[in-house]
């Protein structure tokens, strides 16, 4: 289904900028930006370009693609894998991308519970028998909150030289606006959806009568439906074959959350330690030229006193302190840093996640950092 290439070949005289296929994808992206669906499926996803674009939309947690041709999906499906960067800083949201091989004329429970289902330039490729089953499968069975269907507007065809009879050899039909709208309104009535019509690829000036090059119907489900009822009411055998599945690393996964929290805590502690040490060192420079040990012993004794006071004031227990070669950084202080706070949410969660991963003081209230640096530099 080389629809993009084919279309461009024909539309040489009328040139769309950006290209028409990009405008169609942008239309979907804008829709996603507006309605923030969590579960989105693309029927007839072909080489997965739309899915690839959608994976960057941070509201989406489930992305699915379906196509009748396995090879065309496989060709570029690697683009849907998580990137190294997704592992380095896992996102807050979870995301699972799945590709299925199958026909829109068949029902499969994996397509239930979606918020948005897109059928971009799909219906005109369907055989009559498939087109007949399509409404029941998509609107009756899948029944997502929103469906977007795009298809060529045949009224525009005279402006496209060389279109005989259709824009693409695999098209089984191309409808004018009246035909499409009649079909769509009928479906909407049948399955309790509302529908609005729009399009992309505006006609040239003076030819406004022909309408958009691509006509689009946006269907919105009128009744509300929880995903539980959707699943319980319609148990069906699987009809599709899963050809690809990628689960993106996410902070919702305890494993990645722990790595992120420990990493942020240790880094924050290092920053605190460094500024504390710089502070102490600058005190040396100012007041004494003596060896470091004396000063830190002094610091130690002073801190013994403050340790006793710790329980009395909250203010005090936020402050990091040095004792001998060890820096103590209260977890409350670390928790007050915005990034740590944001990752953990609660102080208890912080404590739970760092248990066993970070050295803590005997009472578990502070992080312990050894300041002794084992330097073994070679002389030159």
């Amino acid at each position, binding site marked *: 289904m080389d629809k993009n290439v084919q279309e461009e070949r024909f539309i040489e005289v009328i040139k769309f900028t950006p290209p028409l296929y990009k405008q169609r994808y942008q239309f979907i992206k804008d829709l996603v930006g507006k309605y923030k669906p969590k579960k989105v499926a693309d029927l007839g996803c072909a080489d997965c370009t739309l899915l690839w674009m959608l994976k960057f939309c941070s509201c989406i947690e489930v992305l699915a693609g379906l196509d009748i041709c396995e090879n065309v999906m496989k060709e570029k*499906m*690697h*683009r849907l894998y998580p990137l190294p960067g997704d592992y*380095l800083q896992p996102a807050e949201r979870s995301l699972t991308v799945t590709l299925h091989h199958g026909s829109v004329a068949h029902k499969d429970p994996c397509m239930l519970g979606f918020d948005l289902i897109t059928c971009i330039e799909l219906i005109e490729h369907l055989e009559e028998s498939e087109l007949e089953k399509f409404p029941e499968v998509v609107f009756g069975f899948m029944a997502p909150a929103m469906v977007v269907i795009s298809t060529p507007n045949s009224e525009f065809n005279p402006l496209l030289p060389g279109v005989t009879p259709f824009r693409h050899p695999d098209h089984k039909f191309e409808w004018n606006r009246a035909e499409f709208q009649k079909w769509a309104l009928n479906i909407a009535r049948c399955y309790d959806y509302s529908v609005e019509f729009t399009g992309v690829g505006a006609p040239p000036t003076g030819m406004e009568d022909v309408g958009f090059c691509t006509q689009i119907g946006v269907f919105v489900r009128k009744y509300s439906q929880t995903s539980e009822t959707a699943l319980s009411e319609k148990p069906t055998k699987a009809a599709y074959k899963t050809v690809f599945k990628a689960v993106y690393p996410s902070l919702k996964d305890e494993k990645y959350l722990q790595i992120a929290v420990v990493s942020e805590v240790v880094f924050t502690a290092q920053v605190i330690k460094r500024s504390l040490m710089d502070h102490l060192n600058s005190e040396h420079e100012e007041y004494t030229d003596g060896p470091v040990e004396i000063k830190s012993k002094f610091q130690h004794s002073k801190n013994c006193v403050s340790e006793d006071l710790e329980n009395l004031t909250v203010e005090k227990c936020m402050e990091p302190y040095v004792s001998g070669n060890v820096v103590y950084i209260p977890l409350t202080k670390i928790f007050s840093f915005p990034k740590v706070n944001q990752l953990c949410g609660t102080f208890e969660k912080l404590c739970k996640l760092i248990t066993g991963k970070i050295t803590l003081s005997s009472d578990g209230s502070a992080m312990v950092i050894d300041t002794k640096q084992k330097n073994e530099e070679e*002389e030159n």
Partner: protein
Amino acid sequence: ALQVQQPLPSQQSGHVQPQQPCLLPLLSAGELAGRGRQRGPPGASKPEEFQISAGFQEMSLGDRGGRRRDFHDLGVNTRQAIEHVRESKTGSSGIMIRLSTNYFRLTSRPQWALYQYHVDYNPQMEARRLRSALLFQHEELIGRTHAFDGTILFLPKKLGNKVTEVFSRTRSGEDVKITITLTNELPPTSPTCLQFYNIIFRRLLKIMNLQQIGRNYYNPSDPISIPNHRLMVWPGFTTSILQYEKSIMLCTDVSHKVLRSETVLDFMYNLYNQVEEQRFRDICTKELIGLIVLTKYNNKTYRVDDIDWDANPKCTFKKADGSEISYIDYYKMQYNQDITDLNQPVLVSQPRRRRGSLMPGPAVLIPELCYLTGLTEKMRNDFNMMKDLSVHTRLTPEQRQREVGRLIDYIQKDDSVQRELRDWGLSFDSNLLSFTGRVVQSEKIHQAGRVFDYNPHFADWSKETRGAPLINAKPLDNWLLIYTRRNYDVANALLQNLFKVTPSMGIRMNKAIMIEVDDRTEAYLRVLQQNVTSDTNIVVCLLSSSRKDKYDAIKKYLCTDCPIPSQCVIARTLSKPQSIMAIATKIALQMNCKMGGELWSVEIPLKQLMVVGIDCYHDTVSGKRSIAGFVASLNQGMTRWFSRCVLQDRGQELVDGLKACLQTALRDWFKWNKYLPSRVMVYRDGVGDGQLKTLVNYEVPQLLDCLKSVGKDYNPRLSVIVVKKRVSTRFFAQSGGRPQNPPPGTVVDVEVTRPEWYDFFIVSQAVKSGSVAPTHYNVIYDSSGLKPDHVQRLTYKLCHMYYNWSGVIRVPAPCQYAHKLAFLVGQSIHREPNLSLSDRLYYL
């Protein structure tokens, strides 16, 4: 007149290769418009980035660009030109040792062949996808297993006829005649097949869900996090399938990708808080240039070549369609990436040169959207960081063998991998390759009439020779010791300890002229200018920190303007009373070498032999200048060396400078010995993957020319040996039921060597932890007539001669000296040092 004694090996001499396409594994797995390109030359916007998939489109034809370098130096057949090793290139001495290695045999069905077909369409079909679809309408003919890139079809089976014609119908009802013509029947060992295996193997790694970064594959779902340093380590594998001595094998080793869980912008913020504001840009540039960054939004890596401080994300660039767009809008639109800091500078990455096609414009990258990868020079020098890292990356032989075995296990267990292999009629051995190597005899250390043995297991004689007189001890009659007030005690402690350790070495020592300075670079320089005279033996500077600028200034002054040996010591290293004497001993030995003294020797049986070591340093900061160190022996015992370096400017051939070095080295040799060497043996380090051909075709003839130019009757024998430290090969000695590191002196010249080369491996050093890495030696030119055994033994002997380490090192001493010299010049001096120092190891 001098005759070149043997024909120079040409590119493909005598080996007729069938005409074949070049299979190019494509590595970029990203998006066409993945980065904001600056205005490039017209035509550069043509889609040229390909995507890989787990599908078959990984293959492409040579005419698509030929941009992949041949990292394995295939087709450089040097051995056949070296007559005396055509029959056998193996040595004989030493005791046998049972070894295994990280290689697995690739086996194919008996009578296996890969069938290559050319596929034509009539009428002509353009789209590759369409071509595929039309062809595979005939799957019953072609079969399920195939690799097709649109023109060339590979099948594991032979079709009934040489030319097969079939008809397909397009969706529009057009009939297309497809002609499938057999063009080649490739035996398992043909180079095309080798590339084919590598492509198939990459496909397998993809099936196993490993992520490709650069040339290797990593498993990102089990990262090792090192939060102290914001590092992330991904375990992975490096793999290659090649024709080795007797069979085609997969060589695989554990590889660790060090990534940083911070963006370039995070790094900049962090640095900004740590340095003075006016020095920030300068330091930041130095830290970042040359680093590889990974973009957030696609799987691409770029080298940072410059930072454009005048630009910011609000700047615009011209897209392929001619429209202007700002970086913010572009990344928002294309990848939904928000740029929060609108004042950050941008990174500039020059595309690597591509032959054939036009150079695309430089890529502009946003720091906030790039992750750092790898380690900076500063990080490498951070002992604590490297220690924390090595806990995870340094694997014992046992761990390494287990990890490597795991990859093979995956392969054997994964059904889809097995099916793919079976369909192609290929399989991998499930066991590591094992064979017999040799451990050559350990050397005796000669030092001023005394002979020392050392424990061959540790390959170190610092204890044995401690306090023994040196071959040639230089007196410290007149020397300076410069220190800051704070380090007064340390300076005295050093002096006292030097007084303790030098007498037994035979070093005569007067009290140093002690000079106190302020802890500023200018103060040090002023003191040097005022106090260094032509009688000064050496200058010792005690530095209070490892700040590089002070060190650089001192070295620069004392290597160029005022050529006197110098020794810098960081005060902290002398702070521990229990180790100060050992350190003073090391310093005394190093100072002696810098003044032209000699420490020890091993027996070198060959007479009139000059050994040369060459290594390169690539200066990434100041204009990407390369620096080659050149070191040549001056005497029989290999205890005195001539050292020079070549600063190669852009567009200049390195070899021109090397010729000049060789000429002066020969002149100096003559001055010392009153005759010229009859043999010259060049150990060439610093040769990158894929550069061997250039070396063979250009550098060797130039060296020969240079020798010829010395004199009409001068006709020395020349050997050129390429030294490679970075190899994936690892050997395991199977003793006591557990895999161990092979002992120092292990030589391997069978099985894992390449049939077209005169090459061997030596494990010369001992390591305290982790797996030892063998060094690969490839003799690319040899008119010496020496037996392989002698070349191997001599090479091993030379690994004993590096004076900064009382033990055996990884490479022949002249290579390490050349490395040290090039590094000093590249890092600190940036100019050619004064030639009056060239007879001393002043750079140690």
